C-alpha cells in the first residue's frame, strides 16, 4: 500500500522502486570501475614483483648497474655432474667448462637473456629525441597555422579531418610508410648515387639522390614523428585556443603584427600546455613497436651507435681542429640502426625459447620500460603544475 501524505508527514510516499534502481545503477558503475582498477593493479604488481628484483638489488648502490649499463648478451648456463650450476656469458663459459673438467654435464645457451639492456635504452632515447624534435617542430607550426592564420571554412575542416584520420591509422601502416618513404626513398647528398636510387639530381659538387636513409635512427625517428604528430597538433591547437582572444585583440590594437602577437602574447602562454602534451607524445613514441620494426630497430646489436671502427681523431689537436669530422661522427650516431626497448621486449617474448632463464631479461626490460614511461608522465604532470603557477590568467 502506498502511504498517503498526512498532516504529520506531508512528504510521505513510496520510492522503493526508485531506490532499487538507484542502488543497481550505483553498484554497476562501482563494479565497472573496480574491474578497471584491479586489472591495472594486477598488471603493475605482477611486473613489479617479477621485474623489480632484476633492476634493483639489496646491496649498494641498490640499482642493478649491470642490467642498466651492459649490452644484451647470450646467457650460458652450465651444469656440473655434482649439481654445480653456473650462469655466465660467452667468455666465462669456456673457463667454467675447463674448471669443471670431467664434471661437465651440460650447457644451455639462451639468446639475449644475459647482460643488460643498455643498447635498447640508448636506442629508444635516440629515437625519442629525433621523433619529438621533428614532431614538435612540424606539429607546432601546423597548429599555429590552423589556429591563428587559416580562415575558417572547408579547407580547415578538411585538414582537421585529415589529422583525425591520421590518428586512426594503424601503427604498422606507419611502419610500412616509413619503410617506403624514409628507408628507401628519402633524399641524401652523395657523390655517387646508389643503384637503387629512385632518381638523382646532379648539383655539380654533389648529387641529391633519392635513395633512402636505410634502417637507422633517422628513419625510425621520422616515422615515429608522424605517429605522434596528430596528438601534438591537436593538443597544441587546444593550448593555443585556450589563450584568451583578448590577448590577441589587445596586442593587435597596439599595432603588433600577427606574428608579433603570436610570438609575444600567445605562444608564451601556450607553451606549458604544448610541452606537457609533447611529453605524453614521448611516452607514445617510446612505446610504439610496429613503426620501428622496418625502419630502425634490430633484434640484436653488439655495439652502441657511437661505437664504430673508425680511426681515432689525432690526439694532439683539440676537438675544434677537427670539427668537421667531429660533427660528421656525431651525426653518424643517427645513421646507425639501433635496438629499442619495445622491440627488445617483443624479441624476448616471441623470438626465443621460453624458460626460467629468459624471465629475468623479460620482466626486467618491461619493468625498466614502465618506470621510464611512468617517470615521463610524472615529469609532464610536474611541469604542468609548475608552469601553470607561473602563467595563469
Amino acid at each position: 500500500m502506498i502511504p498517503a501524505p498526512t498532516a504529520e508527514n506531508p512528504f510521505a510516499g513510496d520510492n522503493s522502486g526508485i531506490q532499487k534502481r538507484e542502488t543497481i545503477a550505483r553498484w554497476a558503475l562501482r563494479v565497472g570501475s573496480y574491474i578497471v582498477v584491479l586489472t591495472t593493479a594486477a598488471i603493475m604488481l605482477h611486473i613489479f614483483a617479477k621485474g623489480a628484483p632484476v633492476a634493483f638489488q639489496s646491496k649498494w648502490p641498490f640499482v642493478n648497474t649491470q642490467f642498466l649499463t651492459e649490452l644484451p648478451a647470450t646467457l650460458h648456463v652450465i651444469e656440473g655432474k655434482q649439481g654445480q650450476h653456473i650462469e655466465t656469458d660467452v667468455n666465462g663459459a669456456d673457463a667454467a667448462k675447463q674448471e669443471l673438467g670431467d664434471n661437465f654435464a651440460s650447457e644451455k645457451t639462451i639468446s639475449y637473456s644475459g647482460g643488460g639492456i643498455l643498447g635498447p635504452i640508448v636506442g629508444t632515447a635516440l629515437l625519442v629525441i629525433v621523433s619529438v624534435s621533428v614532431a614538435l617542430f612540424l606539429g607546432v607550426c601546423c597548429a599555429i597555422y590552423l589556429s591563428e592564420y587559416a580562415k575558417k571554412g572547408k579547407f580547415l575542416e578538411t585538414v582537421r579531418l585529415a589529422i583525425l584520420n591520421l590518428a586512426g591509422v594503424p601503427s604498422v601502416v606507419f611502419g610500412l610508410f616509413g619503410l617506403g618513404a624514409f628507408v628507401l626513398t628519402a633524399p641524401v647528398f652523395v657523390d655517387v648515387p646508389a643503384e637503387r636510387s629512385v632518381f638523382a639530381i646532379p648539383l655539380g659538387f654533389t648529387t641529391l639522390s633519392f635513395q633512402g636513409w636505410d634502417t637507422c635512427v633517422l628513419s625510425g625517428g621520422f616515422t615515429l614523428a608522424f605517429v605522434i604528430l596528430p596528438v601534438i597538433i591537436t593538443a597544441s591547437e587546444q593550448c593555443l585556443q585556450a589563450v584568451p582572444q583578448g590577448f590577441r585583440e589587445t596586442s593587435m590594437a597596439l599595432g603588433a603584427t600577427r606574428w608579433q602577437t603570436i610570438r609575444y602574447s600567445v605562444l608564451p602562454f601556450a607553451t606549458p600546455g604544448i610541452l606537457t602534451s609533447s611529453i605524453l607524445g614521448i611516452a607514445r613514441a617510446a612505446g610504439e613497436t610496429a613503426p620501428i620494426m622496418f625502419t630502425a630497430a634490430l633484434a640484436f646489436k653488439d655495439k652502441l651507435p657511437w661505437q664504430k671502427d673508425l680511426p681515432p681523431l689525432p690526439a694532439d689537436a683539440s676537438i675544434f681542429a677537427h670539427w668537421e669530422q667531429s660533427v660528421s661522427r656525431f651525426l653518424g650516431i643517427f645513421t646507425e640502426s639501433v635496438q629499442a626497448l619495445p622491440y627488445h621486449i617483443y624479441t624476448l617474448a616471441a623470438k626465443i625459447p621460453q624458460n626460467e632463464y629468459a624471465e629475468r631479461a623479460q620482466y626486467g626490460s618491461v619493468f625498466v620500460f614502465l618506470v621510464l614511461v611512468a617517470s615521463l608522465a610524472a615529469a609532464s604532470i610536474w611541469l604542468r603544475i609548475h608552469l601553470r603557477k607561473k602563467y595563469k590568467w
Partner: protein
Amino acid sequence: MVTPAPKQPVVHVCDMDFCYGSSRALQDISLEVEYHRVTALIGPSGCGKSTLLRCINRMNDRVTGARVTKGEVKVKGKNIHDADVDLTQLRKQVGMVFQKSNPFPKSIYENVAYGLRIHGEKRKNVLDEAVERSLRQAALWDDLKDRLAANALALSGGQQQRLCIARAIATLPDVLLMDEPCSALDPISTLKIEELMHQLAQNYTIVIVTHNMQQAVRVSDYTAFLHLGKLVEFAPTEELFTNPHEKLTEAYLRGTFS
C-alpha cells in the same frame, strides 16, 4: 576648457556603410571627432556602436567578411583604407581599450612597455620614461611604482583597467578608443576611470562606447546616438540630452525603448 581644437577633425567618418558578409551593420554614417574632446557613442545593444568604434582602428579587419562598402574613414586627414596605410602605424596612433580588462600575465612594466617593444624600442631609458609617464597619466604611478615587476594579474579590476589604459597610451596615440571600459567595474572604479578620462582629454582625443547614459553625460563633450546601424543624432552632449532634435533620441533617453 581645453586647448582649442584645430579646424580639421582628427577622425572623420564620411557617409560610410559597413557590412558583415551580406548583412549591413552600419549605414550612411557621417561623424567628425574633434581634437582633445571626448565623444561618446550611445545606443541600444546591437545598434553598431562598437562596430563603428572598431572601424576607426580597423580592428574589424580580423572578422572574416567584414568590410566598408561605401564611404571612407579618415584619421588625421588620411583615408585609413588606402593601400599605403601601414596598419601597425595606424594602430599605434589610434589606441584601444577593451570592455574586459585584459592585461597580459606579465609584469606591470612589461605590460606598459609592450606597445613600444613591438615597435622596436629597445633603449632602456626610453622604455623607463614611457612606462613612468603612462602610469602617471593613468593615475597608477604612486600606487605601483615600487612593484613594477609584479604580475599585472595581481591588481584589482579597476587597477587592471587603468593599466590597460596606460598600456594603450604608452605609444602616444592621438586617438584613444574605449569600448565600454567600465562595464565590468564597480562604481568606485568606474568613477576613477571617468575622472581619468577628463585628464586624458587634455592630451588625447577619446571616443568612448557606453551603454550608460549618465556616464556619457559625465564624461563626454559630444554624443552620437546610433539606432539600428544609423546615426540618428550627433550633437554636443548637453544639447543632445536636454534638447534632442530627433523624436527617436528623445524616446531612447526617456527610456521608452531600449
